[in-house]
């Protein structure tokens, strides 16, 4: 049977690439090292497939159709936008796993939107390029949940989706080792008047809950508190919650944290170790 062997929480801040020079060399090196560390861990876990849970930023999906949860079934390319150092290219999709998640999800009452093909944005492309692609032959399943644009998926639903993903993977009668990525956050006031502010206290509090594997507390954050303490970018905590629910009982190991106002974001990296 397939199994979930680990998970990772990591940022997808495009400014790390688009405005790299705004941070000093030491910070750039620490951030690169954190992504590299995750890539190494994906290899060490002998992962066959990676499910990446990200958020659209009103780039892929427009006002005419805003999905709550979307899975890519057949093929993906990316990144959509220019990210210096990351070439646009094909992302090898695990079509069998995607089809299984789609079917099992529908059976369980999760009415996925689907993309048979999609050019993904930085939310999927950055984890893929830096952490998945360095491990040859690891396939990807891109999933988008509405954690950036209203109407957003409810935190409770993101958690339920993660739990469904966990059940589906574990019921898949295929010998496959799967890791799950929660791509996003932490604090950032993207597009808001406060853009550039970083809520370090909030970020460190979230990482403490991640380290404790305290999904209940993380899933209990209300949107008004997230907005006040972490900005609109903190709504992406849903991606972390979904990924943690998919991994199940886990202890988080913080890999790095960088409060980076020059890149307008608190950057948190953690591994979710299966208990």
């Amino acid at each position: 049977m397939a199994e979930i062997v680990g998970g990772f929480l990591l940022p997808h801040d495009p400014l790390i690439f688009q405005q790299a020079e705004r941070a000093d060399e030491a910070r750039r090196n620490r951030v690169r090292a954190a992504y590299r560390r995750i890539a190494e861990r994906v290899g060490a876990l002998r992962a066959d497939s990676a499910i990446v849970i990200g958020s659209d930023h009103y780039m892929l999906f427009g006002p005419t159709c805003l999905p709550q949860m979307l899975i890519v079934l057949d093929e993906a390319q990316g990144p959509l936008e220019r990210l210096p150092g990351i070439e646009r290219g094909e992302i090898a999709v695990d079509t069998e796993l995607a089809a299984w998640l789609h079917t099992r999800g529908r059976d369980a009452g999760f009415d996925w939107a689907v993309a048979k093909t999609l050019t993904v944005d930085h939310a999927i492309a950055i984890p893929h390029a830096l952490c998945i692609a360095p491990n040859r032959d690891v396939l990807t399943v891109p999933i988008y949940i509405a954690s950036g644009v209203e109407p957003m998926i409810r935190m409770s639903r993101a958690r339920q989706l993660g739990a469904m993903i966990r059940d589906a993977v574990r019921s898949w009668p295929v010998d496959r080792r799967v890791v799950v990525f929660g791509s996003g956050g932490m604090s950032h006031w993207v597009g808001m008047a406060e853009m550039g502010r970083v809520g370090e206290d909030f970020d460190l509090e979230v990482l403490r809950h991640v380290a404790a594997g305290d999904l209940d507390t993380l899933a209990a954050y209300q949107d008004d508190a997230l907005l006040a303490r972490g900005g609109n970018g903190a709504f992406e905590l849903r991606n972390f919650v979904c990924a943690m629910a998919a991994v199940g009982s886990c202890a988080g190991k913080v890999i790095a944290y960088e409060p980076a106002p020059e890149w307008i974001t608190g950057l948190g990296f953690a591994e979710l170790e299966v208990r």
Partner: protein
Amino acid sequence: MSTGRLEKLLYDLAIDRGTKERFRSDPAALLARLHLTGMERDMVLRFDVRGLADRGINVMLLMGYWMELEGSRDLRGYVARMNQPALCREASHG
């Protein structure tokens, strides 16, 4: 004000090359073809991102449209404008 109509316009301005080119060459002509109020047209033409945000327009769309079309392509300029009062006022449009 139609939030949906304005967000569709700003989305197209941020991602669609043809719409961007039409805006760059003759913004008033592009906007005249849309069903916008005079105030809505003014806000878009003057890059009144503060005023648009105050009316519920998604700030990620506003940032994208600013970076693509405002000219400076400067996030600091965008933040500065977001921290100023709205440029367009209802009273001046009756």
